[in-house]
């Protein structure tokens, strides 16, 4: 970075956003030294392709390892609910269900509060509080998941069992989604702990994105007589929309792949129950739990297929997240 000094860096204090179209146009028009540009584009493309290569190799390896299981169970691997290592019967349905449900729960809980917190940190909080609070939230990403897990067992689960779940059962118990005894351990606990774990990711990135929205947006809105909330709602959030989606997707993916904290509180029962109070299991957890001790080739192969399947689930859930966002795009009146 020593070349930085040689460069005439323009002093820019104020700026404004232009529609994405003109950015693309500019990107397409090569100005200056073509050799340097070509090299730069080449190198960056190479990095981009690396991102493609790693999962490709991973998938290739997983496919190879899961051959036995693919051949033996075929499609029934997706639909069967039996997971019996002793009798070599493997079906992934309860795990798929548990992974999808627990990460959806996590998103439902985490997204509103994370965005709220991010807005608070970027626009609403007293400026003295912003930095330390933001710093703290970021730091929480460092807590090892085993710690979240222990906290889950000793603090979260008893709280859920004694106060939250009885209330849910009392008022909503007739709905199948909320029925069953208050065990504490179960899908709800997993959803809550995942939500807590992904809040730092979603909040920190959203806050950065909100900060990066040029102040001129805010100034324009305020100049038009907007209230603080209107400013955020109509001037800041639309410009930040794509970035917030990116943040949510990073959070979602962290939830999909989390093992340790989930397995400590989810109850680890491979049955797909409708109620969020019932125990369940997740794909990432079963892989982490059983990989080290899997003692037959078919068993290992089934776990590899589970990993492969988790990639597919991640793919589908990412697609759905983007689609959902595209659906709400017009409502948000976004420009970014």
């Amino acid at each position, binding site marked *: 970075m020593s070349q930085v000094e040689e460069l005439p860096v323009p002093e820019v204090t104020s700026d404004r956003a232009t529609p994405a179209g003109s950015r693309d146009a500019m990107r397409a028009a090569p100005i200056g030294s073509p050799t340097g540009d070509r090299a730069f584009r080449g190198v960056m493309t190479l990095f981009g392709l690396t991102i493609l290569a790693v999962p490709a190799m991973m998938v290739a390896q997983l496919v*190879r*390892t899961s051959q036995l299981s693919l051949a033996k169970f075929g499609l029934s691997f997706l639909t069967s609910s*039996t*997971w*019996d*290592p*002793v*009798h070599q*019967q493997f079906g992934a349905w309860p795990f798929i269900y548990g992974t999808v449900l627990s990460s959806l729960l996590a998103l439902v809980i985490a997204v509103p509060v994370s965005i709220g917190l991010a807005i608070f940190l970027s626009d609403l909080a007293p400026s003295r509080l912003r930095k330390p609070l933001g710093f703290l939230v970021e730091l929480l990403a460092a807590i090892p998941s085993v710690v979240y*897990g*222990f906290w889950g*067992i*000793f603090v979260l*689960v*008893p709280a859920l*069992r004694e106060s939250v779940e009885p209330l849910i059962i009392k008022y909503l118990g007739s709905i199948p989604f909320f029925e069953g005894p208050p*065990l*504490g*351990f179960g899908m709800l606990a997993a959803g809550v702990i995942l939500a807590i774990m992904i809040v730092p990711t979603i909040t920190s990135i959203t806050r950065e994105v909100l900060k990066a929205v040029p102040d001129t947006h805010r100034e324009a809105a305020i100049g038009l007589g907007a209230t603080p909330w209107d400013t955020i709602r109509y001037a800041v959030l639309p410009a930040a929309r794509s970035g917030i989606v990116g943040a949510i997707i990073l959070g979602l993916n962290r939830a999909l792949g989390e093992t*340790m904290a989930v*397995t*400590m509180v989810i*109850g*680890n*029962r*491979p049955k797909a129950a409708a109620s969020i109070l019932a*125990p369940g*299991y997740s794909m990432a*957890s079963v892989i*982490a*739990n*059983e990989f*080290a*001790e*899997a*003692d*037959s*080739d078919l068993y290992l192969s089934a776990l590899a297929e589970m990993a492969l399947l988790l990639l597919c689930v991640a793919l589908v859930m990412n697609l759905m997240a983007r689609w959902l966002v595209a659906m709400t795009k017009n409502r948000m009146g976004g420009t970014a």
Partner: protein
Amino acid sequence: MTRTLFAVSILALAVGCGKSDGGAGDAPLPGSKKADAPPAAGGKITLTGAGATFPYPLYTKWISDFTKTTPDLQINYQSIGSGGGIRQITERTVDFGASDAPMSDEQLGKAPGMLHIPTCLGAVVLTYNLEGVPSGLKITPEAAAGIFLGKIKDWDDPAIAKENPGVKLPKKAIASVHRSDGSGTTKIFVDYLTAVSPEWKAGPGSGTSVNWPSGLGAKGNEGISGQVSSTPGAIGYVELVYAAQNKLSYASMKNAAGKFVLPTLESVTAAGASGLAKMPDDLRVSIVNAEGDAAYPIAGFTYMLLFKEQKDAAKGKALTSFLSWSLHDGQKLTQALNYAPLPDELVKKADAKLKLVTGPDGKAFLP
């Protein structure tokens, strides 16, 4: 795929050996009673081992004591699980493995020449969370199987109550907790249930992970003890060391002789001794539901695994002296850490096994 990996690993090991062979000197290793024999490396030797979690604290204590007098020897043992240990030693990414359960015939087929050296005994205890009921609740094999099959649902069930006349059992649902991660502890426990209950044998069967008919899963001993201690009416199974160190209340089990026995180091060693009678030549044996009045029924040996033919003379020499030391001096350290020592008879058999270990030249390391 594994076969290619295996071939590659052997190749790499051969190359690696070539490099470190030159360093052999003659600093004597301490500890061994036959101290005349083992000349160790002049350069640093590092032995890497991986496997069972259960004996990890004991092994680190042994390593620490043994290497105090051998500054040039480092032994790095890490607990990655029994299955992991078996896989790593089979692929020779480590110098020795460790496992709570003997290797299966299928696994041995992939690793010909593997020796099982028992190092100590482990036991699995039933721990529960019942207010006002301390350690010593009497549990029959039928009751244990019934609880984990989901057939016995309440604490005041006659199957439990009739053996515990003086105990006030609550009318409370039983919440059974089992290990969610594959583990040697589960293997010993379900081995036991398979041995005592035809219904269990026909149903879930035995393995490091099984298809549990009921109950919740928790990760690790700490997961079980956490879940049990935070759930009134819960019952789970943990290693004896874990229960003893963490002051959990545990059950007294009815053994094959019809006696109720508390899990103690003595009753576990007694189970080991009674297992000697049916000990096969390769020392791979299950001692659940062992005979004998004093024997605790849910116990097993834990093993170190090493290849009979060592490719690196210096490492092989160091490894065999360490193991030999463990079988003799090491046993004295077991009880302080709540591990049950090996019966004397078995130490002799294990000694004989160690003497079979040879270097690349075909000569045994131990006389």
